[in-house]
């Protein structure tokens, strides 16, 4: 037989392609829905599942269903009992006493006792754990001595009996209950942590609704139902399968093809998706408890003058920014987002008024064409916003010099004292309490030389006094009154340019139930169900 080269190559080509195509066909098909499993993607890597280390929404989403804490939140973000059956706070707001539920078990079989919570908290405070959450627990009596190695236990965490836990604070702070509802404070079994000191995250065991089955870092995570979970009927699915590292633009395509059950909506697809009647019933939204703002360094010219800070507030058209975001936000009039206890709907803030802005600037002696460096983060969505701000400022005679930098760079610069004059910022709630915005961001104690959370380096003794007084109150209404007064002053002082509060949008496949967006936990895996599956 005479061999024709063309034939040989076409044969090779066909064989190669066939092999390639069939090679994968026995693998799970990528589309079909199978049983009572939830299919998800995560744009960001899951950094960790170790509750002492995780401090980002992605890690928390999974940590909080593998582990279980003393307290959790109901649908309206009110604290509810979890492992703590009941609790009481002493009238001085300094001591908390928790009664633990009996017969709650870790997935390796042992009962959860008060000692497990004490261990979890001391682990966070131990400098060796390098826990980013340590700062939240420094207020416990004896924490400083423990951190400095002067004591081998934290005196303020006491275990009178196996099912009672007592925590004493140096300063009264009722928001400490919220701190205890953060995954940092969830129970971990000491024997598991000590058996795997090098990689706690991979071997994590908790008392939550799911247990970890497989986790290939950066690739995939699989959780399966904890059959011994103490709340009946929870979780709603047998397993959760997560593909990690899938960016939003891909996840929306995968969602539309039915490959996954839940997806966020990237900005370029937003209008198309929300206007498509096919997706209307699948759409859920909720205002996010976060605030985007421009910090104006009150320690540096020209922002030492309150008139300039007010002028900047009047000069920037927030409605326009909201339109740029396709309406996925509400304009901010103050510090607290609408979903936050203490949010003040009557706060007037600064309406768009370029004439007033010009007047204030000229009173403050700012010349036409005044130049100011505007450091921003180079995320594409934010660049669009900052360009709009630049335009608005130009209208009132301010030339803002845009300087977009990479996120890590911005993070470093923005917290350095005396470094940046004017920059773009955002704050997301750690827990739903006004102190988590006002005290953390605007108290003069929050000013630091590096890594300052008070990015405007704003200091007003009157605000400090109100915030200090509020943190000691146990009466919720009186507390909120004080926080509102502090916020009003901060707004009057124009500590920031208050920009907007984003709205979260998410898509759930029609066969998924329970997909309301929660005010604290963006994605609650334990409440989701697949229709028609038990």
């Amino acid at each position, binding site marked *: 037989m005479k061999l024709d080269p063309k034939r040989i190559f076409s044969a090779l080509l066909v064989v190669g392609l066939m092999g390639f195509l069939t090679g*994968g066909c026995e693998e799970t098909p990528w589309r079909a829905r199978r049983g009572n499993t939830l299919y998800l993607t995560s744009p960001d890597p899951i950094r960790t599942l170790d509750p002492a280390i995780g401090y980002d929404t992605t890690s928390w989403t999974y940590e909080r269903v593998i582990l279980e804490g003393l307290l959790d939140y109901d649908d309206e973000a009110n604290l509810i009992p979890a492992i703590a059956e009941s609790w009481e706070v002493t009238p001085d707001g300094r001591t908390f006493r928790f009664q633990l539920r009996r017969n709650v078990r870790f997935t390796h079989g042992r009962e959860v006792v008060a000692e497990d919570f004490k261990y979890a908290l001391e682990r966070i405070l131990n400098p060796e754990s390098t826990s*980013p959450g340590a700062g939240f627990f420094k207020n416990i009596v004896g924490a400083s001595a423990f951190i400095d190695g002067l004591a081998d236990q934290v005196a303020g965490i006491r275990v009178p009996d196996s099912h009672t836990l007592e925590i004493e604070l140096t300063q009264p702070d009722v928001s400490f209950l919220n701190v205890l509802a953060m995954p940092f404070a969830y129970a971990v079994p000491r024997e598991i942590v000590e058996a795997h000191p090098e990689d706690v995250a991979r071997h994590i065991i908790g008392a939550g609704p799911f247990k970890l089955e497989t986790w290939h870092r950066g690739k995939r995570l699989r959780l399966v139902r904890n059959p011994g979970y103490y709340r009946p009927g929870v979780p709603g699915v047998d397993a959760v399968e997560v593909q990690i590292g899938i960016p939003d633009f891909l996840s929306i395509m*995968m969602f539309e093809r039915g490959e996954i059950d839940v997806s966020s909506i990237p900005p370029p697809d937003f209008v198309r998706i929300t206007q498509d009647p096919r997706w209307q019933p699948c759409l859920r939204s909720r205002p996010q408890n976060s605030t985007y703002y421009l910090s104006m360094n009150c320690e540096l010219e020209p922002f030492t003058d309150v008139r300039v800070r007010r002028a900047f507030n009047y000069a920037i058209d927030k409605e326009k920014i909201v339109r740029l975001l396709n309406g996925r936000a509400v304009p901010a009039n103050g510090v607290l987002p609408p979903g936050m206890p203490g949010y003040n709907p009557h706060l007037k803030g600064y309406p768009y008024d370029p004439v007033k802005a010009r007047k204030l600037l000229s009173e403050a002696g700012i010349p036409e064409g005044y130049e100011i460096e505007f450091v921003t983060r180079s995320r594409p969505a934010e660049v669009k916003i900052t360009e709009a701000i630049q335009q608005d400022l130009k209208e009132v005679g301010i030339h803002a010099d845009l300087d977009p930098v990479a996120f890590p760079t911005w993070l470093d610069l923005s917290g350095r004292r005396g470094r940046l004059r004017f920059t773009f910022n955002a704050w997301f709630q750690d827990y739903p309490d006004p102190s988590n915005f006002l005290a953390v961001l605007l108290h003069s104690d929050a000013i630091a*030389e590096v*890594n300052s959370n008070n990015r405007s380096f704003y200091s007003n003794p009157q605000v400090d006094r109100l915030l200090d007084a509020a943190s000691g109150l146990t009466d919720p209404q009186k507390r909120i009154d004080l926080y509102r007064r502090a916020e009003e002053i901060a707004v009057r002082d124009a500590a920031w340019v208050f920009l907007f509060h984003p709205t979260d949008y998410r898509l759930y496949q029609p066969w998924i139930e329970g997909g309301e967006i929660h005010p604290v936990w963006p994605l609650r895996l334990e409440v989701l169900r697949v229709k028609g599956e038990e």
Partner: protein
Amino acid sequence: MGKRLITRLVWGALTMLGTSVVTFSIAFLIPGDPAKMYAGEQADEETVERIRQEMGLDQPVPVQYLRYVGRVLQGDLGESLITHEPVLLAIWRRFPVTALLALGGLFCWLLLGIPAGLLTARYRDTPVDRTVLVLAMIGISIPTFWLGRVLQYELAYARGWFPVGGYRGLPHLILPCLTLGLVGAGYYARLVHSNLVETLHQDYIRTARAKGLPEWIVLFKHALRNAFIPILTIIGLDAAALLSGVVFTETVFALPGIGAQAVQAIFNLDVPLIMGTVLFSAGLVVLVNLVIDLIYPWVDPRIKGGV
């Protein structure tokens, strides 16, 4: 032969040392604070400071570098600042996907490129030749990420023939391999073409034809083998290009390989992981070139350790 191998190995080691110095310096010239990235945006100052000390980031950069090299020599590439995963393990776990993708891409390069080159050389100055060369030029000029997005949209999203992205098995690799392959294939078609055209004008080819050998034997046995030596060199050099193509392709299709991981590491200023990936890739390129060097004598018996 032995001497050449040793020389090559020494050069390889020097290449990697140089690469590590440059990468380390760049990582520290970029403003940004790894401790703060590790601690999270909202961590308080004291906590960040403690983490910085715990990680040794408070030491001068040269000290940090020397410590790093010391550990690397003992086989310890450190831990990722973000995930705490040992870097070597992080790379090793994701390498299979990258390797499959790179091999699949290379396979497409050669599978499409060589026949196309053969065809154009054999039918030189005919419409076949011109069409294939124009297609090849288009292939060369298309950026990987663009082609990837187009294939992804048309074949996966709009038609559902392939998975859109992610990785749950081999079907997820078809489109990425094709993306990588189509771009490189054009280049190889050109390469085979120009080498063959030259070879086909040699006297020994005319002799072979004059002997009455069938054309396919002339092409394969006589011409292609000779034309293959420069192509082999280029494959070695292209190992680096392949790796960078892998970075784009993995990012477009969200494949969990070392390329996508490296991009993430850069965004997070995860210095140990960046360093590890660069060293690993440099090592890979050195290794591939070494292997190619060793294959030469087999392809061309005239080369016997003398070059």
